[in-house]
């Protein structure tokens, strides 16, 4: 391939400079390679979006990733636009688009183009397979040149992989990003980086410039598409999505070991046994040989993601799974997004060589914009709802309702009865609205759901199994609007299968419960009940859905608390009684 490309370059030079009579036609493989490349770029260009804010002053680029119009771009491109933007595509049309979700730390935003169900969409590639020396191209709207809505395309090479570029404050961190010498200029922000085969491997957003002004000097960075895949489900929630931290900081010692030099005692890593002085060996399957590598490995996950960790103490390797903490607390992140003195990026502006490396686009005060009630295009207004903590609450409501509608147990369990008697090989459980009881071979525990709920975490060692079942019943009885505060979180990997599950969070009486649904069947596959911060949750896994008591119900239950499997039960009987009587 490389040789052919080289030939191609020479062939072009020869065509121009040599007398026509003396040159032979290029080799077939050269012609084929060129045709293939033209075709790949034509298809890729069709998915590329030129984004303009509503004043027409600023903008950037984006790329459509699904036929229903979901498109990726940079947070710093959408930030000045407010909820609505105009998106030009190479078909010559300008589409209205609405903000869906934002990831201010990762500098990613998800928008949705409106008006079609058959948008040309880019296929997502695998950025972890990308190597230095791979040929790539950027497409986009550099210097807002795309007045005719045709993207500019620039060819180049991958110069570095797994690069780390520092955030400004805690936002706009480029972890584990791709570095390329394909031109990334102001206005390319948010646009696609394609592999030579046309697969989307990154979102361009940043470059190194320093004293070289604000135009491409061969050093551009793209957010890796594999990072964005972790966030995509979260972005569809309409939320302002946070990144994750281990709850510990590390440093590289003189002899090149990465060791914990500080750890918070209320984080999950601490509860999983990580301590000051422990050496990190692997994180999320990656060897950790430098502090930068940990930052790279960590920077690609949303808050709450479970990640395998291997650490070493006293010559022994310890393996565990850590649930990652958020970088910010939710209100802090919302405030930061509002405080950022963003203003529309003006990619056509003369570069100022004295400014710092990263272009720092500006964000208008979101809440002020909302107070002004800007006139949104109707299509956007129908899909936008402002709410504190959300980029667009409309999408969260929609996702909640979709989950709820597709959940088969909603009808099956709530109509059938509020009193359950579950008989299994490990226990018999009775649940009534105000009381619950579990009979295990050597123990009996009860819980009372009147008064202070936070003390009702029986049976001991389960983290609150009876309470978890009670909250499940509460969700069934009260539904999305009366349970307490309910929101759609996004997708997290299943504790056991690692396949993505949809997460609905319910907050009631200070307890945060994550109801996890299988995206395909709609079944409830897990309930993770966190009675308060700083403790391990009760993690109930529900699988083996089969017909029990005339309903599709989970036949296998597993209860985890901390590192321990508290109970593994096969359900034999499940009595559902409408009468809300007491247990004894």
């Amino acid at each position, binding site marked *: 391939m490389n040789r052919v490309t080289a030939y191609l370059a020479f062939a072009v030079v020869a065509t121009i400079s040599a007398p026509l009579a003396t040159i032979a036609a290029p080799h077939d493989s050269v012609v084929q390679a060129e045709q293939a490349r033209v075709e790949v770029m034509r298809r890729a260009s069709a998915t590329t979006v030129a984004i303009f804010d509503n004043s027409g002053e600023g903008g950037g680029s984006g790329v459509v990733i699904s036929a229903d119009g979901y498109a990726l771009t940079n947070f710093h491109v959408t930030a000045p636009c407010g909820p609505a933007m105009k998106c030009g595509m190479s078909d010559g049309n300008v589409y209205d688009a609405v903000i869906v979700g934002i990831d201010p730390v990762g500098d990613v935003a998800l928008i949705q183009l409106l008006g079609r169900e058959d948008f040309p969409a880019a296929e997502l590639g695998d950025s972890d397979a990308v190597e230095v020396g791979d040929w790539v191209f950027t497409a986009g709207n550099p210097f807002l040149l795309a007045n005719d809505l045709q993207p500019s395309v620039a060819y180049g090479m991958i110069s570095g992989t797994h690069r780390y570029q520092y955030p400004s404050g805690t936002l706009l961190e480029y972890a584990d990003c791709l570095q390329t*010498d394909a031109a990334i200029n102001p206005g390319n922000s948010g646009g696609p980086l394609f592999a030579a085969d046309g697969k989307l491997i990154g979102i361009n957003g940043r470059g190194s410039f320093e004293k070289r002004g604000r135009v491409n000097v061969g*050093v551009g960075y793209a957010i890796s598409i594999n990072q964005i895949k972790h966030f995509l489900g979260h972005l569809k929630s309409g939320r302002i999505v946070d990144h994750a931290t281990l709850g510990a900081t590390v440093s590289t010692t003189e002899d090149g070991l990465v060791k914990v030099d500080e750890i918070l005692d209320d984080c999950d890593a601490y509860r999983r046994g990580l301590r000051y002085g422990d050496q990190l060996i692997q994180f999320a399957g990656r060897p950790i040989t430098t502090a930068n590598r940990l930052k790279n490995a960590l920077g690609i996950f949303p808050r709450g993601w479970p990640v395998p960790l291997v650490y070493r103490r006293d010559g022994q390797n310890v393996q565990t799974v850590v649930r990652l903490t958020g970088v910010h607390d939710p209100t802090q992140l919302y405030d930061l997004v509002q405080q950022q003195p963003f203003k529309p990026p003006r990619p056509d502006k003369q570069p100022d060589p004295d400014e710092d490396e990263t272009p720092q686009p500006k964000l208008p005060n979101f809440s002020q914009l909302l107070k002004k009630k800007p006139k949104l295009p109707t299509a956007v207004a129908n899909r936008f709802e402002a709410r504190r903590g959300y980029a667009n609450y409309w999408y969260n409501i929609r996702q909640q309702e979709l989950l709820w509608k597709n959940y088969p147990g909603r009808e099956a369990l709530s109509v059938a009865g509020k009193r359950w008697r579950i008989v299994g090989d490990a226990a018999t459980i009775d649940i009534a609205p105000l009381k619950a009881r579990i009979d295990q071979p050597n123990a009996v525990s009860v819980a009372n759901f009147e008064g202070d709920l936070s003390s009702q975490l029986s049976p001991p060692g389960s983290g609150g199994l009876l309470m978890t079942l009670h909250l499940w019943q509460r969700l069934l009885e009260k539904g999305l609007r009366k349970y307490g505060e309910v929101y759609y979180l996004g997708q997290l990997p299943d504790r056991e299968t690692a396949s993505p599950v949809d997460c609905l969070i319910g907050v009631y009486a200070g307890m945060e419960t994550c109801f996890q649904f299988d995206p395909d069947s709609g079944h409830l596959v897990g309930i993770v009940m966190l009675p308060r911060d700083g403790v391990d949750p009760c993690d109930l896994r529900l699988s083996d859905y089969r017909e029990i008591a005339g309903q599709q119900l989970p036949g296998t239950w597993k209860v985890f608390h901390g590192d321990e499997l508290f109970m593994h039960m096969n359900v034999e009987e499940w009595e559902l009684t409408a009468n809300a009587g007491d247990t004894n």
Partner: protein
Amino acid sequence: MGTYGKRGRHQLNQRMSFTASFAALLLLAANATLASEFQRTIRTAQRKVVKIYGAGGFRQLEAYQSGILISSEGHVLTAQSYVLDTDDLAVVLHDGSKWEAEYLASDPITELALLKLPVEGLRPPHFDLESARAQSALPGERVLAMSNLYGIATGDEPVSALQGVVTAVAPLRARRGAYQSNFRGNVYVLDAYSNNPGAAGGALVDWQGRLLGVLGKELRSEVTGTWLNYALPTAAIADAVAALREGRIVTSVTTLAPVEDAHSAEQLGILLVPDVVSRTPPYVDSVRRESSAAQAGIRNDDLIVFINGEPIESQKALHLTLERLEIADPVTISVLRSGELKDFSLSALDASFEEEASEAETPAEVEP
């Protein structure tokens, strides 16, 4: 390296699957192996490029640059710059190992410096400059520039690789002052953004990974003011580097003791540019009228490169050298002027001064 085993296999699998889809799309199955060969070539060359950390860190003065390993004993060739002006010079190899580098010497014309790492027995991967002497590239040939530009890579992260074409083989036309170049031979002019901050000292290689040249310091064009992307060809630097390796070590003058009646720049009539860093180059700022320097023909803007054949790389070295030369003996000062080396014989004796005064051809220019 045990922990790398799994990752290595993982990468291999990914590379194979990637290569497969690439080839299928382009109908170029026969060339699929070439693609991975190219990536392998880059990885091999990247391992011979090092990250150098030293002085700087102020605005627009980066405290880092690049270098290339040129011997299995740990010789590192890099650009002579303020970054090297420190006793605390650190060099990081491809595997993340960090070494304290010894500054051996520098060549005033190519503005390259030679460092040595105490790698006893380690035999790091390196370029062979002697065999690279014969490598050359013509305009139109495709090349790769490898350096730690912008200091992006740290620890064991590979340096950056940029691709481009040799657009010309021509002399530099760089600006004067800080952007002046002493080198007047032909360089490779590139269309890759090879010479970004921190890139100086990096490698220019061909698509087989063979060394073609060394990326020079940051220069701006005297014509357009734009930043130049260029490399010094191996053929043009090999002799100078060989001389550096053979031990023309600047510090040798200081092994002599200072003498009582010694020469001094002041007494010879040479006023140097302000000495602001520890290795300020000995540029002549002005020459006192009717001094022996003026009589001999030394002019302002000359760069003093040798005294009595000893390389002079800094003002400090110049003063140390003159302090050790008897005033009674004549002194030969070699300067670099417009890329040419010129020798002048100076004598501080009054008698000869008066004799030569009448023969002076060019009166010295003295500028305020």
